[in-house]
């Protein structure tokens, strides 16, 4: 049986609870949870830990919160967003247990630290997933086996490239432009060898880079009335799509200038 949660936490305790809640919110936001879920989870945690007068406002890239009559207030900037739904799931699980009153603050802090440390899949798995995913999507969009194979090669190359980019912390826009150019180049080369349609292969492999997630989240934010967050995500999606088009367009243009053959 866990120790009961303090009904009236003192000043020191309140600050600790606040820090914990902010960290939990940041973890959710960083790893791809929706804005309203972050708000909701933070409020549930505050209520369960008896942190009174807790108000929170979450944007796609920041958290603002205060507790007490503005006795404590904190701001977190969350510029880097990746997608790791396993961590979101863990924090969600933790918040459910906190709401049920089964977890003390000490345990909760430890569990949160563990959730934040859940690793990404190994690089071999990421390479395999990129390859197989590009293959499957190229088939889904109407490609035949040959263009699927080309997409798989491109998917493998671009997954490896993205892994390398993450290691050296290359800026996102540059990553997308060069990644798209790489995909198009590989697809043109392999498709010319195999005699397959370049279009299906390219779009299958490009699915790895397309802003599908940003787009879906943007829609969901809009539907929930988080218009500012939705706008941020949508602009994100448009920027990514623009970068992809730049990269792919560049290679296609160069190819048609060099060989006189127009693809797509």
């Amino acid at each position, binding site marked *: 049986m866990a120790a009961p949660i303090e009904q009236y936490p003192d000043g020191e305790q309140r600050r600790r609870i606040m820090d914990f809640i902010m960290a939990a919110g940041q973890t959710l936001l960083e790893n*791809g949870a929706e804005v309203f879920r972050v708000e909701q989870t933070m409020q549930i945690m505050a209520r369960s830990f008896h942190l009174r007068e807790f108000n929170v406002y979450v944007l796609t890239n920041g958290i603002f919160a205060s507790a007490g009559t503005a006795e404590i207030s904190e701001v977190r900037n969350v510029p880097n967003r990746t997608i790791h*739904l396993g961590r979101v799931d863990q924090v969600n699980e933790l918040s459910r247990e906190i709401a049920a009153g089964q977890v003390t603050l000490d345990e909760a802090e430890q569990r949160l630290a563990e959730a934040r440390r859940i690793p990404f899949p190994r690089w071999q798995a990421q390479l395999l997933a990129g390859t*197989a995913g590009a293959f499957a*999507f190229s088939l889904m969009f109407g490609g035949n086996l040959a263009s699927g194979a080309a997409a798989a090669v491109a998917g493998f190359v671009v997954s490896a490239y993205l892994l390398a980019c993450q290691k050296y912390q290359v800026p996102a826009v540059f990553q997308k432009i060069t990644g798209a150019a790489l995909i198009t180049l590989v697809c043109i080369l392999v498709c010319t060898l195999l005699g397959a349609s370049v279009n299906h292969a390219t779009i299958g492999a490009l699915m790895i880079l397309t802003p*599908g*997630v940003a787009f*879906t989240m943007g829609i969901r934010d809009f*539907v929930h009335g988080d218009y500012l967050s939705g706008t941020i995500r949508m602009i994100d999606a448009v920027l990514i799509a*623009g970068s992809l088009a730049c990269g792919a367009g560049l290679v296609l243009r160069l190819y048609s200038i060099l060989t006189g053959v127009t693809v797509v």
Partner: protein
Amino acid sequence: MTLSDLLYLAEHFLRACGGTLCFGLLFGIPRRTYLACAVDGAVGWAVYQLAILLLGDSGAVTATLLASIPLTLLARIFAIKLKAPVTVFLLCGIFPLVPGAGIYYTAYYFILDDNQLFMENGLNTLKIAIALAIGISLVLGMPLPRPKKKQP
């Protein structure tokens, strides 16, 4: 609905299973949700293909709306059964339907200065996005009966 149609749908179901699972893996979904995510994405894509078969190629928007409804419903059911946030299933499952290619083509024709194709693709992408939004919000807003059982 002929046998070859059914085979075609089954084939797409399997392809979408693979595709969704791969992207789910890249998003780091928890291990216990692998199968559910794959099924979710595959159901959405199969319904989409079925609707395209029935409506023809011009019905992409309607097909997206029709597909997003069972997909989101399934995501909610999985979320309750497996005790995971809806996002885990929704984000992966919706991936085949999201007009990622549409956004890309829109930007591509914008850069190529082909205004007609740019408008065409852009409008189509927008319509599909709205259809997705309506489908998702319809089902997510729908109240589901929740078993109120206290666990010991």
